[in-house]
């Protein structure tokens, strides 16, 4: 790939993460090496317990590796203070969660504006940027609504708008279709695809092979190790292209 000439946006170097559950040591990430470049659409796939949530937490700067290095945009996240981590999450990452995670008491517009508030933007700027982001996901007519007044699909689109609002380097989607029916799920995946086509880097975390097939590249995890890293349409990827959603 031609992007490989530039340094990777996301780089894992021998990343390990161990937890202690009582007396037993759980190796949630076991010496993972991977690189994701700007503009890629990558799916991290794995069953429950494969370590994909740990990977997502580390990529999302919510957690730091026990050993090894995680470089985001060339900077070592493991060495950062909590405040810098918070600032990195704010500037570099856009989160899309399975449960949408919108703030129930805030209007749709205010929800989308939350990352902008922590970025220190003025109220006027926040309103403008948030309204624009909501326009991109087709919710311009719902600005004043509360999240509870929207359907699941619409709520997930609000959360996509929120993820986009501060112009992140990486859009990190954790089981974005998990709470949606298949039709709205396809819609959401369609939006992610179009974001990728517009030049955004999208990392999709899922247990569902058919959803992983939406991406261009698949990284498969098992027991905290990378067992496959390559194009989604190669047979070894294990994702069945014929059942791909959103195609």
């Amino acid at each position, binding site marked *: 790939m031609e992007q490989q000439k530039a340094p990777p946006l996301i780089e894992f170097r021998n990343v390990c993460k161990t937890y202690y559950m009582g007396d037993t040591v759980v190796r949630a990430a076991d010496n993972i090496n991977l690189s994701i470049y700007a503009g890629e659409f990558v799916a991290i796939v794995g069953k429950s317990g494969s370590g994909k949530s740990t990977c997502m*937490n580390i990529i*999302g700067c*919510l*957690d730091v590796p026990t050993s090894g290095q995680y470089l985001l945009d060339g900077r070592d996240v493991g060495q950062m203070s*909590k*405040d810098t981590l*918070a*600032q990195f*999450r*704010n*500037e570099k990452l856009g*989160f899309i*969660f399975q449960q949408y*995670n*919108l*703030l129930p*008491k*805030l209007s749709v517009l205010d929800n989308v504006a*939350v*990352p902008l*508030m*922590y*970025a*220190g933007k003025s109220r006027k700027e926040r309103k403008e940027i948030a309204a624009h982001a909501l326009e991109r996901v087709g919710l311009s007519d719902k600005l004043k609504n509360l999240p509870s007044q929207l359907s699941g699909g619409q709520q997930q689109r609000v959360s996509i708008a*929120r993820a986009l609002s*501060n112009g992140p380097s990486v859009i990190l989607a954790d089981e974005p279709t998990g709470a949606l029916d298949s039709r709205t799920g396809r819609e959401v995946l369609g939006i992610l695809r179009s974001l990728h086509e517009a030049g955004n880097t999208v990392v999709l975390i899922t247990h569902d092979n058919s959803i992983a097939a939406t991406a261009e590249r698949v990284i498969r995890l098992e027991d905290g190790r990378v067992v496959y890293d390559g194009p989604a349409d190669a047979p070894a990827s294990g994702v069945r292209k014929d059942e791909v959603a959103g195609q």
Partner: protein
Amino acid sequence: MKLTESFRLALQNIRTSKARSFLTMLGIIIGIAAVMVIIGIGSGMESYMRSMFQDLGTNTLTVTMTGTGTSREVSVDDMYEIVEANATFFSDLSPTVTMRSTVKVGSESLSSTSTTGVGEGYFDIKGYKLEQGRGLSYVDMANRGQVCIVGNYIDDVWFSGQSVGQTLRIGGSKFTIIGVMEQQADEMDEGGSDDVVFLPYSTAARLSGQGTPSSYTVLLSDEDLTSAASDVLEQELYSRLRSDDAYRVTSMSMVLDIMTEMINVVITVLAVIAGISLVVGGVGIMNIMLVSVTERTREIGIRKALGAKERYILSQFVIEAAVISAIGGAIGIAMGFGLSSVATVLISTMLEVEMTVTPTVQSILIAFGGSAAIGIVFGYLPARKAALLNPIDALRYD
């Protein structure tokens, strides 16, 4: 993120849970209102007493001659000598003789009129001014003149404002009215400070059968030297009378000081007790904030994931607690004013005392500052708990 954002978030959150916020504030509201009313009652009592005592004169000493335990006497001339010999302390003197004789105008008896025999300096000492006619002179004292000065009420009611030159009777003797006092009280009442008659002390002493005046009013040169002046006067009297029981020197300003001090002690104790309810109110805020942090764990997780630093979460919750208690404080202050006027009405109707319960500016400032401080202090612990939440756990929380 600016502080104003934290305030906006706090107000937003208080608006969305009005009932809970109000119940949380209740402790603060009651505490602040109680402290304000108690301090208001204290300052009302103090100013009421001060005005009462001021009417009696805080720049004078009163000497009461009881004559107990001695056969010696102090004459009026002796008293004048004492005053003249101690000019640094005393500037004037007037004997006073309180009479119980009834005043009669024509055939009407004025049963509630107070009649007092005084010296020629009395009006100056008391600061009384004349509206018409002349004052009592030394000649009136020396001659035991049958003259008197009347209060404005008597002039107004019994003589239609034309009393100078008219006569009235005191204990059967005829007195010519030579002067009328200016109005003293705001409203002239029967038995009030305008329903009075003053005559020469010498005449009064003879009429009431007393050899020497029963009391003296001594004007102080310097109000700040009240207690020293009082000591000097006591020494002088003791050296002449040789008995502690034969005389009594009282100073209104000293009595006022003692009373004020006592009231302050009582009020402080009451205010501290009321202040305890403020602490209880603060604990209530802490309790609710802890519940709120637990309930909003997921919100905190989301905010952290979206880039909120720990100090933003901390300030959000601290400011929320402070705003709740400051609003409570403001409501409490409003309620304090309301209760103060209710208390004023209750006191004046039930006790028939003209006392105004006045919340002091200081007590309001302290109350408001205190309530905000309580919010910050008791909000800090829950806010810290929120700030230190691990975002991963918080996001997973249901």
